[in-house]
C-alpha cells in the first residue's frame, strides 16, 4: 500500500476529486483515506456478517443471534473477541512460516481492493485510471493465500480445499474479467468513478431514457455475479470449504485469529464484489436511473452534492451493496453445493463462451452506435 501511495499513484492524488482530500497537506488526506478504507474494511464485513446471520436465521425459521447486544448486533464482535482469545494452533507437520503467512496473504489484497471503490459522490480513497483492472488484480492475488494455507497445513482435506480453490479461481477469473471488460468497453473507461458517470449519461439508443448498465448487459451482470460467487467460494460454489466433504477445506487446521482473518477475507470479498457490481451495473450511488440525488442537481448530478447529497449517496450505495449481499446469503440458504467438475464444466462450457458473446455484442453495439 505504501508502495502504491508513495510512488506511481501519487500523481493521481492531485487530480482526485474525493472529498477526503481536505486541506492542501499531503498527510491529512492520506490518514483520512486510510481510516476510511480500514473503516469500510472492518465494519463492512461485520454488517455483511450480521445480515447473513439474521437473514439466514429468519429464512430458516429461527431468529439468528439475539443475545449479544441489541438484536444480537454485537454477535460478530463477540466472535472476534473469542477468536482472539483462542489458542493459535499450528500442526506439527505444517510448514510454519507459510502456514502463518497464508491468512495475511489472503487478507491484504482484499483490503487493497477497497482503495479505489467509490462509496458515494466523491467518497473514495483513489480514483485510479485503471480502477477496474486494479480491483480485479488485487482480488486475484487472494487465492495465493488460500493455496498457501491449503498446502502448508499438511492435511489432506486442506490440500483438496486449496486445490479446488485454485482450480475454481483460475476457471472463474476469465469470465469475470471478460464480463468486466464489456462494461469498460461500453463506458469507455476503466476508472470506477468514470463508469458511474458513464452510467448516469447512458441513454437507451435513440431515446432519452437513462438506464443503468444492468439492463443492456443483463447477461454480463449474470455472468459477473456467478463468477463473483465462485471467486469468493460462496455457496453454491463453496466446494473449497465444503464442510460435509472436506471438513472445512483449506481452513481445516486454522484456529483463532488466523481463522478469523480468513473469514474476514471472505466477508470483505463479499462487500468488495458487491460494491464492484453496484458500480459496474447498478449505477453506483444514484438512487434511480436519470434521477439525480437531492442536492446533487448541480454539476452533472454526481459530485459537489453538499453534505445531505453525499450522505444520501453513501446510503444508497451501501443499501445496494447490502441488497447484493442479501442475495448472496439467499442463494446460500436455498441451494445445495455444486460439484467441482460441474463447476468447471459450467465455467468453461457456459460462462466463458457467454462472456465472449456478451463482449462481442457490446463491442458491436458500441461501434454501431
Amino acid at each position, binding site marked *: 500500500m505504501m*508502495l*502504491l501511495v*508513495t*510512488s*506511481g*499513484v501519487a*500523481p493521481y492524488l492531485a487530480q482526485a476529486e474525493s472529498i477526503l482530500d481536505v486541506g492542501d497537506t499531503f498527510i491529512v488526506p492520506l490518514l483520512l483515506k486510510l481510516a476510511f478504507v480500514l473503516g469500510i474494511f472492518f465494519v463492512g464485513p461485520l454488517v455483511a456478517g450480521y445480515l447473513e446471520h439474521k437473514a439466514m436465521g429468519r429464512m430458516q425459521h429461527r431468529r439468528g443471534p439475539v443475545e449479544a447486544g441489541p438484536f444480537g448486533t454485537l454477535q460478530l464482535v463477540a466472535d472476534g473477541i473469542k477468536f482472539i482469545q483462542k489458542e493459535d494452533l499450528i500442526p506439527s*507437520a505444517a*510448514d510454519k512460516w*507459510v502456514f502463518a503467512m497464508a491468512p495475511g496473504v489472503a487478507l491484504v489484497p482484499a483490503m487493497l481492493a477497497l482503495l479505489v471503490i467509490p462509496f458515494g459522490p466523491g467518497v473514495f480513497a483513489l480514483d*485510479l*485510471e*485503471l480502477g477496474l*483492472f*486494479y480491483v*480485479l*488484480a*488485487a482480488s*486475484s*492475488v487472494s*487465492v*495465493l493465500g488460500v*493455496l*498457501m494455507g*491449503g*498446502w*502448508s497445513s*499438511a492435511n489432506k482435506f486442506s*490440500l483438496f480445499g*486449496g*486445490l479446488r480453490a*485454485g*482450480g475454481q*479461481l*483460475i476457471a472463474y*477469473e476469465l469470465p469475470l*474479467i471478460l464480463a468486466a471488460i464489456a462494461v469498460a468497453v461500453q463506458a469507455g473507461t*476503466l476508472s470506477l468513478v468514470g463508469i458511474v458517470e458513464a452510467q448516469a449519461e447512458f441513454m437507451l439508443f435513440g431515446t432519452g431514457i437513462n438506464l443503468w448498465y444492468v439492463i443492456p448487459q443483463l447477461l454480463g451482470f449474470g455472468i459477473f455475479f456467478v463468477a463473483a460467487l465462485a471467486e469468493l467460494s460462496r455457496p453454491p460454489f463453496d466446494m473449497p470449504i465444503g464442510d460435509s466433504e472436506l471438513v472445512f477445506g483449506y481452513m481445516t487446521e486454522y484456529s483463532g485469529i488466523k481463522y478469523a482473518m480468513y473469514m474476514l477475507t471472505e466477508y470483505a470479498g463479499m462487500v468488495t464484489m458487491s460494491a464492484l457490481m453496484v458500480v459496474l451495473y447498478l449505477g453506483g450511488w444514484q438512487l434511480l436511473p436519470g434521477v439525480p440525488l437531492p442536492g446533487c442537481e448541480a454539476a452533472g448530478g454526481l459530485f459537489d452534492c453538499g453534505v445531505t447529497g453525499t450522505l444520501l449517496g453513501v446510503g444508497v450505495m451501501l443499501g445496494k451493496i447490502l441488497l447484493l449481499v442479501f442475495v448472496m446469503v439467499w442463494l446460500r440458504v436455498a441451494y445445495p453445493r455444486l460439484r467441482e467438475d460441474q463447476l468447471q464444466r459450467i465455467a468453461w462450457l457456459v460462462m466463458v463462451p457467454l462472456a465472449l458473446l456478451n463482449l462481442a455484442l457490446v463491442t458491436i453495439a458500441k461501434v454501431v452506435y
Partner: protein
Amino acid sequence: MTGHDLVFVAVGLLTAGGAVFTVTSKNLMHAALFFAVTLGGIAGVFLTLAADFLALVQIVVYVGAVAVLFMFGLMLTRAPIGREALDGQNRGLAMAVAGGLFVVLSTLVIGAFGDLPTAEVTGPRIDDLGIAIFADWVLPFEVLSMLLLAALIGAIVLARRESGESGEELTVTRIEMAQDRDPEALEREQAALTSGSGGTGEEHA
C-alpha cells in the same frame, strides 16, 4: 537520490532477493512462493516506472494466474510437504547460464542506455497503449495470439496422447508399488488381466 529512487532500489532488491531464494530454496513449494514474490516485485518495478497498466497485468497474469497454476500443479503432483532435499544436480550448468545471461544483458542495457540522462518518469496512458497495440502493432499481436492458441491446443493434444488410448500397450519402467498393496490383490488383478476381462470401466458401469 530522490524518494523515488529509494523505492525503486527497494523494489529491485525485493525482486532480486525473491529470485535468489527461488533458486536456492530446498523446498519446491517455497521456491514457487518466492517465485511469486519475484513476479510481484517485477510488478512493483513497473509501477515505479509509472507503467501502471503493465504492473496490473503483471499481477493478474503472473501472480494471479501463473504462480497459482504453478502451485496448483505442484499440489497435484507429489510435492513433498515439509523439509525434503531437492536437488536437480545441474547447479554448475544453471549457474553458468544464469551468470552468462546476466553479463550479456547488463552489458547490453548499459551500453545502450547508460549515457541517457535521468528524467522524470511518465508512463504511457492506456489510450496510447491501446492505440499502439491495435493500430501500429496489430500484426505482431495477432501472430502472438495465434501462437499462444496453438500452444494451448498443442498442450491439450499432447497431454491427452501421452496417457494413451484404452487397450494400448506401453513400455514403461517398473516402479516399486507393492508396499501398499497386498500380494493377493495383485494376484487377483493379474488374473483379471490374463483372463482378458478388460478394464475397470466395465465393472463400474
